């Protein structure tokens, strides 16, 4: 496959086209992904998540600059929300990543969430695979501004960084379920602001309550002022420690298995949906939706019928 060959030999144009292809989905996307899959599995994949305004883009920019100085290549996927009303999106994360512009060792791609609510897009996992196959040593995924439910990132990456800023919630916010549970590393950004110590204290006391996810990894809580590139070296060192931890035992294999299990499930879901739609046809599909809306048939029975036809 020509596009796959160009992508694997380092063409940035082919990589960009490839990401568009996997975002669109369908058979050409699957062909591309199956052609490059054997070349994936080398990148260390990092997720950066946190509330809107916590400083995710600025921190990702600072981390990428740090790793570039260390000679590592960095691919970035920055996800922003799609408007549920118009289907359009404004993707603005590049604004904070200008210092990375013009560096051939960096590739930044903005991605709209396209209706997915987990904080990343359906195609984010596929785009990670393309960057990985294209040879980027580190891949960073920046989620949409996340709250308490956008936890999908953790199963798509190796190391999850949760970014907090001072003054964004009381200690009850800190013990709720959600993104705080998925952190491998906490960063309290804007640590020069008032309230940083309180935020750190709250996170620390939450952690002493125990973590459901890890037995032998305690997420460090690190301070940073990403705008001034302060505290970035410590975060990079913590990522490295976490990577070593994953590689040290059975953790990485288990993590990879879970990540692949999730990806595989999504691939099957999508393929099944696509086949069912094709088999039924757009008009009959819409007619079925209308019948469900009129309560003439329930959606479960309708789904069974559609799937029976598609196999």
């Amino acid at each position: 496959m020509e596009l796959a060959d160009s992508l694997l030999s380092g063409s940035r144009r082919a990589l960009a086209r490839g990401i568009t292809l996997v975002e669109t989905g369908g058979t050409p996307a699957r062909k591309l992904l199956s052609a490059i899959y054997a070349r994936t599995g080398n990148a260390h994949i990092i997720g950066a998540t946190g509330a809107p305004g916590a400083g995710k883009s600025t921190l990702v920019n600072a981390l990428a600059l740090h790793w570039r100085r260390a000679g590592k290549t960095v691919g970035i996927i920055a996800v922003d929300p799609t408007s549920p009303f118009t289907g359009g999106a404004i993707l603005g994360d590049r604004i904070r990543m200008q210092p990375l512009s013009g560096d051939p060792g960096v590739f930044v791609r903005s991605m709209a969430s396209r209706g997915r609510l987990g904080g990343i897009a359906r195609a984010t996992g596929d785009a990670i695979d393309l960057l990985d196959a294209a040879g980027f040593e580190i891949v960073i995924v920046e989620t949409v501004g996340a709250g308490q439910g956008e936890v999908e990132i953790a199963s798509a990456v190796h190391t999850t960084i949760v970014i907090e800023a001072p003054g964004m919630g009381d200690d009850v916010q800190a013990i709720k379920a959600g993104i705080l549970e998925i952190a491998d590393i906490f960063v309290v950004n804007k640590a020069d602001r008032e309230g940083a110590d309180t935020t750190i204290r709250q996170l620390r006391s939450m952690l002493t309550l125990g973590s459901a996810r890890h037995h032998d990894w305690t997420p460090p809580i690190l301070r940073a002022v990403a705008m001034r590139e302060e505290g970035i070296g410590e975060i990079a060192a913590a990522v490295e420690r976490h990577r070593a931890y994953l590689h040290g035992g059975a953790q990485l294999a288990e993590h990879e298995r879970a990540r692949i299990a999730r990806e595989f499930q999504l691939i099957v879901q999508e393929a099944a949906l696509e086949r069912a739609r094709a088999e039924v046809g757009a008009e009959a599909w819409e007619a079925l939706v209308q019948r469900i809306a009129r309560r003439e048939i329930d959606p479960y029975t309708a789904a069974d019928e559609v799937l029976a036809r598609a196999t």
Partner: protein
Amino acid sequence: MARKIRVLVAKPGLDGHDRGAKVIARALRDAGMEVIYTGIQQTPQMIVEAALQEDVDVIGLSILSGAHMTLLPKIAQLLHEQGLDDVLVVAGGIISDEDARILMEQHGIAAVYGPGASMHDIVKFVQEHAGVERDS
């Protein structure tokens, strides 16, 4: 799924007046497009590199500084060097009719909009012309 129209909205050059660019970005978003907004003070190299990485169908450039006869041909030339000839380039700003004619006839700028241009016309033009020359 149909491919979404992706648009890069950027401000080349040194003027910092980005209200127009933001209004356009918002209108294109409301028309269902994915708009990559890169902000002010972009060099032609930065714009073309972003267009390549983001695989956009359209570049919308806002220039109010008067430097359009230098910046726009430079961007067009860099796009050509990168093999991005199928990207639609649309410009807006304070650009005289004579300059607009030269930009469109000699430098491949698809459309030039000045003050008073209708948002509806701009959105419609982009919808009708985006990605038509793309092979995939």
